[in-house]
């Protein structure tokens, strides 16, 4: 039997695919899911990667990151797909390593955009921080499925996960699924998730000062998603990711 025949598509019963767009996955084919990029960051070194993903066709980006002792990796992603767009990151942290993730999903239409992370603190004293912001309108969907695993001897782990969704109109949705699996006893794991609407009081305040409705919305969305890229020190890259996200906002419901 050829290898291709053994590949099957996931189902919604698989926790990590619970909110995925199964029709889009079928169009993409199982073969596309079997492609992992691997990133190894040796002990003491650091890596930063910025990505702008999304097109008019389904996309699945799967990245497997291994961090050596004291290594650090930072991923910042603008996910503004016009069709199902999934970014999946699996990370294994050795002692004292740090993983930083900042992601934005933004868009209307009826597409699903999602981040799925699995962060494994395999050894003591590693830290991780994940910040995801989702802004959607029409029937757009944004998902963040974030799993944090802390191994038995990974004491002094410090892991944080923060999700906020902003829905510009009824019909859009945001799903946050934090999953913590902790086997060590001396750890800090924080997670938070909220979903809300645009602050109408702030929008009126801006308009009362002369800012037109679209610009007011853009400023407020910019402030909202900015949290995801706070840890990105390269100002040019931060601007590029923000601009890509805000470009997707053109034509959004006011």
């Amino acid at each position, binding site marked *: 039997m050829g290898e291709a025949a053994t590949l099957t598509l996931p189902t919604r019963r698989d926790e990590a695919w619970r909110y995925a767009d199964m029709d889009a996955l079928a169009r993409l084919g199982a073969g596309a899911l079997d492609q992992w990029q691997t990133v190894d960051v040796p002990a003491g070194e650091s890596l930063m990667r910025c990505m702008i993903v999304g097109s008019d066709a389904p996309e699945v980006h799967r990245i497997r990151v291994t961090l050596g002792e004291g290594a650090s990796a930072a991923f910042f992603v603008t996910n503004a797909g016009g069709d199902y767009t999934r970014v999946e990151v699996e990370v294994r942290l050795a002692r004292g390593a740090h993983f930083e993730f900042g992601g934005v999903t933004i868009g209307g239409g009826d597409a699903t955009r999602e981040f799925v992370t699995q962060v494994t603190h395999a050894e003591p004293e590693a830290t991780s921080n994940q910040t995801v912001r989702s802004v959607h309108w029409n029937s757009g969907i944004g998902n963040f499925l974030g799993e944090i695993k802390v191994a038995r001897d990974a004491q002094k782990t410090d892991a944080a996960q923060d999700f906020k969704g902003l829905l510009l109109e009824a019909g859009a949705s945001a799903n946050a699924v934090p999953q913590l699996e902790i086997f060590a006893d001396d750890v800090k794991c924080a997670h938070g998730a909220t979903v809300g609407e645009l602050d109408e009081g702030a929008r*009126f305040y801006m308009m*009362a*000062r002369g800012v037109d409705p679209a610009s007011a919305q853009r*400023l407020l969305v910019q*402030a909202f998603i900015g949290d995801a890229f706070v840890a990105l020190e390269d100002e040019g890259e931060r601007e590029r990711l923000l601009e890509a996200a805000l470009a997707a906002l053109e034509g959004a419901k006011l």
Partner: protein
Amino acid sequence: MLEITNLHANVGDKPILKGLTLSIPAGEVHAIMGPNGAGKSTLAHVLGGKPGYEVTEGSVTFRGQDLLALEPHERAAAGLFLGFQYPVEIPGVSNVQFLREALNAQRKARGEEPLSGGEFLKLAKDKAGLLKMDMEMLKRQVNVGFSGGEKKRAEMVQMGILDPAFAVLDETDSGLDIDALRIVGNGINAIMRSPDKAVLLITHYQRLLDVVAPDKVSILAGGRIVETGGPELALRLEAEGYDAVMA
């Protein structure tokens, strides 16, 4: 400059303004006083165009234009400034970014060239100085972490930068200590006392009127103007109370 004629307005289904008529010519500072629930803040919100306030009858003409037909940002560009009783906090947006965007949007709407970053900062520094506010405050997020008094001073800095023809100031004196009250009052005088500008000043207290001497004082009660007079009317209210004066 501002002509309000027989204005009726509802908040939800509840009528609040019930036939309010008021005329404020250029060069005038007109104070509005009145008991709680009289409709003072509703008047300010209706003039600013806040969503949720429905005008059911009457008209408001501002510099010859139908004010009520304009969107809030168009009213601002036309020269109207609304000073908020409760200025709104906007996390993630700095005062400098917000005000430059606001000023340049107004200038664009009026067919004027936008100010460069440098020109804007010079203007902002000048107006902040007028209100004795540190430029560092203006680099911070809009009203976030500001005390009540700082928010009101920041409102006046905004007014100075935007340089409106007409200001509606809704209880700008609330939450101010005595020194801040004087600073804010002097700011209002410096920015708005001009033959081609006018102010509608909503207040509960004589203290602000000691600094910003109004030309006229009106009492708003039950959704309409029940009495108009000179500055002495405010002094009488302070001494005798609304019930006695309106009796």
